[in-house]
């Protein structure tokens, strides 16, 4: 077998194994939390009778392992089950929310990834001169401020004071694509600020590292312009670390945006998961957990595979 196919399939199998591990871990942790869904739903109004009735109705009176394997059986067949608390179909709820989260993540990524790489290249081109310092200073500042604070500042000035964009990034099916884009302008902006720095710094560092190499010197001696040297000779060889950090940030855009979702009231996955955890709605927590784990594992896998493919020694085995 071609070593690349072997490596890639090994990587895929490992990913699936990891997913199962993650689901078991999440289940175990939700079981370890104090209280259960029945108690969380009834809250302060939990009488012993109501509690017992609700537990029976939710099937919580059965052993934990049974419930886990039932859930696992369902998910293998593509059935995510029903929410314990409101009986809604989880796949349907997640579908909508995941769609929203991916939409926001995509918009933020489409803006931030090219921008980060461009700024990174620019920083290398003007290394240690004012454009480099300005780019670094601005991106490092935005990444150091907590995202909720950036969110509130943006809401206060852009939404409340100027009235340019809505502070509620609520999107729904009846909106057109442009309306949706308009609605998520602010959270996408905040997310871009948050992820920009890391990707830009990585691009800059990786390329600067290569700039010391002998072949870069050759290219320079050939008389190529600095920008050509960077774009044609340095950048392709820096792809692997850059893709790695880009993928990590994309994963963050999907699984790490709870705070931004809360601040902008965005109906994404984060809020759904948080609500499910506080209500101990285990099937929903599991479903969200698996989706998040899949996104993380998937994107990391893509990064690894890209690194493998970008490695000439593996592409051309002896």
């Amino acid at each position, binding site marked *: 077998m071609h070593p690349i196919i072997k490596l890639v399939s090994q990587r895929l199998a490992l990913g699936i194994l990891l997913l199962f591990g993650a689901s078991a871990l999440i289940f175990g942790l939700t079981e370890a939390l104090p209280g259960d869904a029945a108690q969380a739903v009834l809250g302060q109004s939990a009488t012993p009778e109501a509690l017992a009735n609700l537990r029976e109705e939710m099937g919580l009176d059965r052993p934990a392992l049974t419930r886990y394997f039932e859930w696992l059986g369902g998910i293998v067949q593509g059935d995510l089950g029903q929410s314990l608390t*409101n009986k809604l179909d989880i796949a349907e709820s997640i579908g909508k929310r995941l769609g929203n989260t991916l939409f926001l993540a995509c918009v933020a990524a489409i803006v931030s990834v090219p921008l980060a790489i461009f700024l990174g290249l620019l920083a290398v081109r003007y290394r240690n001169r004012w454009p480099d310092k300005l780019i670094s200073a601005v991106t490092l500042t935005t990444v150091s401020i907590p995202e909720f604070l950036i969110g509130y500042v943006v809401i206060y000035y852009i*939404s409340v004071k100027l009235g340019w964009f809505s502070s509620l990034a609520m999107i729904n099916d009846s909106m057109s694509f442009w309306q949706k884009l308009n609605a998520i302008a602010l959270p996408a902006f905040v997310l871009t600020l948050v992820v920009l720095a890391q990707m830009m710094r990585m691009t800059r560092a990786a390329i600067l590292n290569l700039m010391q190499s002998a072949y870069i010197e050759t290219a320079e001696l050939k008389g190529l312009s600095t920008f050509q040297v960077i774009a044609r000779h340095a950048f392709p060889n820096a792809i692997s670390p850059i893709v790695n950090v880009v993928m990590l940030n994309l994963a963050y855009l999907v699984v790490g945006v709870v705070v931004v979702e809360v601040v902008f009231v965005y109906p994404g996955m984060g809020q759904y998961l948080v609500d499910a955890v506080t209500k101990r709605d285990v099937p929903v927590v599991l479903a969200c957990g698996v989706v998040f784990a899949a996104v993380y594992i998937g994107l990391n896998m893509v990064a690894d595979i890209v690194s493998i493919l970008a490695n000439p020694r593996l592409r051309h085995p002896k």
Partner: protein
Amino acid sequence: MNEQITYMAGQVTAGKMTRREFMGKAAALGVSAAVASTMFADAARAAGPKKGGDLKFGLQGGESTNSLDPATYASSVPFQNGKQFGDQLVEVAPDGSIEPRLAESVEGSADAKVWTFKLRQGVEFHNGKTMTSEDVLKTMQRHSNEDSKSGALGIMKGIESMKADGDNFQVTLSEPNADLPYLMADYHLIIQPDGGMDNPGAGIGTGPYKVEVDEPGVRHLFTKYENHWNSDFGNFDSVEVVVINDATARTAALQSGQVHAINRVEPKVADLLGRAPNLTVHSTAGRGHYVFIMHCDTAPFDNNELRTALKYAINRTELVDKVLRGYGSIGNDMPINAAYPLFDETIEQREFSVEKAAEHYKKSGHDGSPIILRVADGAFPGAVDAAALFQQTATQAGIPLEIKREPNDGYWSEVWNVQPFCASYWGGRPVQDQMYSTAYLSTADWNDTRFKVQAFDDLLFAARAELDAEKRKKIYSQMGRMVRDEGGLICPMFNDFVEGVSNQLDGWESDPTQEMMNGNMSRKMWFV
């Protein structure tokens, strides 16, 4: 010129001119903005409720785990949803009286044991079916069934039998209860077709708005139901409930005009928010109270001297000022305040006193070991700060109060009603009987202070059977004193409902029963 302004205001209310144009033209006539605004409001009010417009609420208290099933309502957003699409038999009016809804009238037998609700005729459910007494009976059966998980299960306990009798619905109680109509006004008891036995979460009711979009934890959209039984209710074309749990986001949404009303304005920003020109902050004294509860049957709190010492050691005025920022009133160690009918104003207010606290503490013979108070901000907003202030004043009196901070998550299952001394919150009930029966009767499920006094129970039952208001007031006064002097409740303050409402809306009225005009904003308010 006055006539001119009135005419123009009329044009605005008729929808022929925008408010902005009005203000501009008023300015051109030489009227200052403030005066024009007042004149406009007067003219608009004179014009009375106006129909139309899309109302948007931004509310705290909604989760993606919510359901439209009335039995499951436990937070603000589901409560509001229920008020849009459903009606109860009766409602508690802002003045504390009983207001007819799906029942036209209520009549009790002389012994207050048999209650007959005469049902309104020709009321239509959103699925087109006409409401019958069978539907009412089945609804009540669903909520009172032993297998029920309904939040109203507790209050349905005293019911011996119920029957549907033509146009009437009749309830027979095992013990007399003069307050039964108030129990039937509970927000869980929304009348549904077939009692909601088949699909309670479908959101079918008789309310002025019908469910259009139901996305739990995100938004709920309701549109005007044309065949509603009362055309006075529901002035809007649609009502949208947007879930905004983050306080800052909620405030920003109101300020930038994306929603017309928000609940739970944080006291610390209420004054600032109130200065904004386009909105009003309403503060309504309610029956909700922030408390510290002690288990009367657990050491060291089984000692009334110690309980009294702790009650004297808390500075109520300071707590109202610093924790509620003045948006509330001081409590008197009983769960009842002036918002209740039959409240006795003459019960003397307990004042903060280091000397008395020290004196009672000495008398209690406590060994000086730390007294542990468990708190989390989930108990009530500012609970941790309140506990810290309490600790300071208690230390002055020589009481070794120690604070243990608990996580919000799981607080109601792990700490409240489990640990002997903790912070808590009570939303209050429409009448004293219900409040006491829920939490102070010896056998109450939520007797979170473990207050078990036979004499108190006897008084409670006597009050229930008493139809003479004066006599009942006397009994309640006696009960209030008992809880205040012997109970395990430290009630330093009653919180107000603090809400932000856009000036585009008119028709606000104060309602102490529940927040947002007891959920009736969309029925009673209108766009100016």
